């Protein structure tokens, strides 16, 4: 018998299939949804799970489709018929992955259990070090609730979107497997025990915060501070302030507890730790829940779909690229380390391939989706490309001569974190200058100079705060840029050759220079940097706004599956 992989047709496999999508408002979820609707109109029904209730959920979905540029190609292809086209293929379901039964009402859940062929679970909290309760609820319990749904469904399986960085603090070649018995630093680990341990940690932090002694200390602190400012706080005011402080303290302690636990086990942050825990818990149920874990690396700007350069929010390379365009020069990065970047549309194509493999019962357990194994991009090259991209931009569009002539040539460099001009040393130096300007000036200097020094100290003080933020960002990315040399195996997907060329996953075809300079950086500049700078974001407004029709006549999956027509033709 031949072991040759069977070529699969994405369109034929997904025709008439019903998919439950979580995380549709996220970066990957939106692009996948738009791509499938654009390229596979013969899809059965996509149930989009969104948080909220009743009409509010539908309005939220309409807002996403009407404001996000991701759906521009769809609007342009369907123009006046967009509402009809989408409503025939999408059902928005009110729910919440962090709730049992995915927060769905009983009738809907029962219907979906019968109908759904596969769940694409993209929902998750992607903040690196959030409140551990939120990370647990979203990343771990969310996955478990999806698994519960799949286990009780008639025939569904689940594609769980995780991250390559569940590998944690480790070096070398990371294979496409789930390590079930130990953490990245070798600590023995059992998924259920770890989940219980995490709940214990949360309960401990909560108990400490609820301790009456904590409240007494906080109250004393508040009263003292108010007195220092000359205020006499009444009981209600003090109680309100203590309540706020307790909540803030609890959030901070919860975030720290998560980070501490993650680091103790060898994960760089809470995000990767909770994503890894979700994988481990899913694996424990692999005899009852048919699942595949999909691990994208660093998901970045689209190559082509919805259009070249599409990106949004705070992503991994964005802050680093942004820094490379400032006066800050020494990016802590080890020459030769990979920063595994993969365009979002490549990720979405890979998602569709693995979904098909799951539907056909041919899926592997883990799929890593990155570029380091197939088209290596070292972080020092990326740093130089970022500097060159800023150079190209500033030369022509710098706001003044200083930017056009000097900043454009002020190249960022990959450097050792201990470099004498590292951000910590610069911050310390600037802090000392600030202190001198504020308190260290001789008494005898003229008042004009003193005023000038006061003004200058405000500028340097603000600089110190900004440098502190930069320091935090760099520390967050250090595991990826400096500490570890990881190459993520990305071969499982090759077991599923694809018939349609436009759905093939081929990171080896990416030409990094043109991608970085002509696609990614202009995309970041347009869609992400305004957010970093608190500037208004560009939105999209279609000519005919989309409305989710309440009672569209759903075309049966079977009938559509026999009429495979490209979206553009349907638009005509």
């Amino acid at each position, binding site marked *: 018998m031949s072991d040759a992989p069977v070529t699969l047709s994405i369109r034929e496999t997904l025709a008439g299939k019903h998919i439950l999508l979580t995380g549709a408002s996220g970066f990957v979820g939106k692009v996948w949804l738009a791509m499938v609707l654009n390229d596979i109109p013969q899809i059965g029904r996509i149930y989009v799970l969104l948080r909220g209730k009743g009409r509010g959920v539908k309005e939220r979905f309409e807002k996403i489709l009407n404001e996000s540029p991701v759906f521009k190609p769809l609007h342009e292809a369907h123009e006046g018929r967009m509402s009809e086209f989408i409503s025939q293929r999408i059902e928005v379901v009110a729910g919440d992955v962090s709730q049992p039964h995915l927060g769905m009402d009983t009738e809907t859940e029962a219907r979906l259990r019968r109908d759904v062929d596969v769940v694409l679970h993209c929902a998750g909290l992607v903040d690196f070090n959030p409140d551990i309760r939120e990370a647990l609820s979203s990343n771990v319990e969310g996955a478990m609730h999806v698994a519960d749904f799949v286990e009780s469904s008639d025939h569904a399986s689940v594609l769980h979107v995780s991250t390559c960085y569940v590998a944690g603090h480790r070096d070398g070649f990371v294979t496409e497997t789930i390590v079930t018995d130990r953490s990245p630093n070798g600590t023995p680990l059992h998924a259920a025990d770890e989940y219980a341990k995490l709940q214990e940690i949360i309960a401990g932090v909560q108990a400490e915060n609820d301790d009456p002694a904590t409240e007494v200390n906080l109250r004393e602190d508040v009263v003292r501070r108010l007195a220092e400012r000359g205020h006499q706080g009444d009981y209600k005011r003090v109680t309100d302030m203590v309540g706020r402080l307790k909540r803030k303290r609890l959030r901070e302690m919860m975030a720290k507890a998560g980070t501490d636990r993650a680091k103790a086990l060898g994960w760089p942050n809470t995000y990767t730790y909770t994503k890894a825990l979700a994988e481990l818990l899913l694996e424990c149920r692999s005899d009852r829940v048919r699942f595949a874990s999909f691990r994208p690396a660093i998901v970045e700007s689209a190559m082509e779909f919805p259009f070249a350069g599409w990106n949004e929010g705070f992503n991994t390379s964005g802050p680093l690229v942004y820094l490379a365009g400032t006066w800050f020069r020494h990016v802590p990065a080890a020459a030769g380390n990979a920063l595994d970047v993969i365009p979002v549309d490549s990720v979405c194509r890979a998602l569709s391939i693995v979904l098909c493999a799951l539907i056909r019962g041919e899926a592997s357990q883990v799929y890593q989706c990155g570029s380091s194994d197939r088209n290596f991009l070292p972080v020092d*090259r990326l740093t*130089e490309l970022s500097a*060159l991209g800023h*150079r*190209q931009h500033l*030369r022509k569009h710098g706001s003044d001569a200083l930017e056009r002539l000097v900043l454009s040539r002020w*190249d960022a*460099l990959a450097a050792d974190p201990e470099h004498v001009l590292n951000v910590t040393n610069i911050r310390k130096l600037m802090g000392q200058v600030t202190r001198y300007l504020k308190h260290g000036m001789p008494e005898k200097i003229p008042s004009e100079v003193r005023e000038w020094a006061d003004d200058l100290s405000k500028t340097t003080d603000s600089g110190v705060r900004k440098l502190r933020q930069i320091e935090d960002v760099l520390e967050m990315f250090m595991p990826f840029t400096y500490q570890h040399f990881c190459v993520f195996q990305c071969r499982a997907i090759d077991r599923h050759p694809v018939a349609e060329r436009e759905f093939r996953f081929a990171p080896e075809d990416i030409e990094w*220079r043109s991608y970085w*300079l002509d696609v990614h950086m202009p995309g970041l500049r347009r869609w992400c940097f305004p957010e970093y700078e608190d500037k208004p974001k560009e939105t999209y407004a279609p000519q005919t706004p989309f409305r989710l029709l309440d009672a569209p006549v759903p075309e049966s999956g079977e009938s559509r599956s026999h009429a495979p027509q490209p979206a553009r033709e349907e638009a005509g």
Partner: protein
Amino acid sequence: MSAKPTAAFFRAEGVLVSSGVMQAAMFMAGQRAGMRERALRFGQALASAPLFGLLGQNDRTLGNRVAHLCYRDMTEDRIVVLAEEYVDDVLSEKILDSGIELLRRAKADGHRIVVLSEGISEIMERVREKWRYVDDLVCNRLEYRAGKATGKLLDPVIGGYEGGKWLSQYAAVHDIDLSRSFAYAGHGPDLLLLSQVGHPCAVNPDFTLRKAAREADWPLMDYKA
């Protein structure tokens, strides 16, 4: 009369553009990543300038090799981006309109247009986009290893006496009738190139070529723009 096609060969430096490889090398060296590298490589390029000038009227192969050493360890990404900047900001101001007019006329006369340049391909390919009449561009190529220039030029190095040998091979491959072909060049080492065509022309020639052209009774052209 021969039915073979004819060609017009142009040496870029001195005929089509007024700036040469030393300016490009110094520009690139001055834009290296990091202040120390910039200073070091710019100094290196500066130091190689006299040697290049000394050899300029004879065999420029060694001069070219020395001038291009300042590219050593420079990434291909940086060279490509800086080449674009160099062409847009520097070289576009140095293009000689009279030379471009020669190109245009040669093309109108039905000749195959071949440009030879000592410049590196990253720069010259971009310039070629601006010269619409060029059929073939032959220029120097940097050697790269792991995405970084080694500082060496790949053979054959354009600029030396190899130009004449190369021209014979080119004519054989493309079945060019050299006796009815034209060549325009301005440097001493181009003597062999010019001597192989039926219609040589010394353009803005240096001392060596001017003397030889006069003795051979070749046409001379001088222009500055």
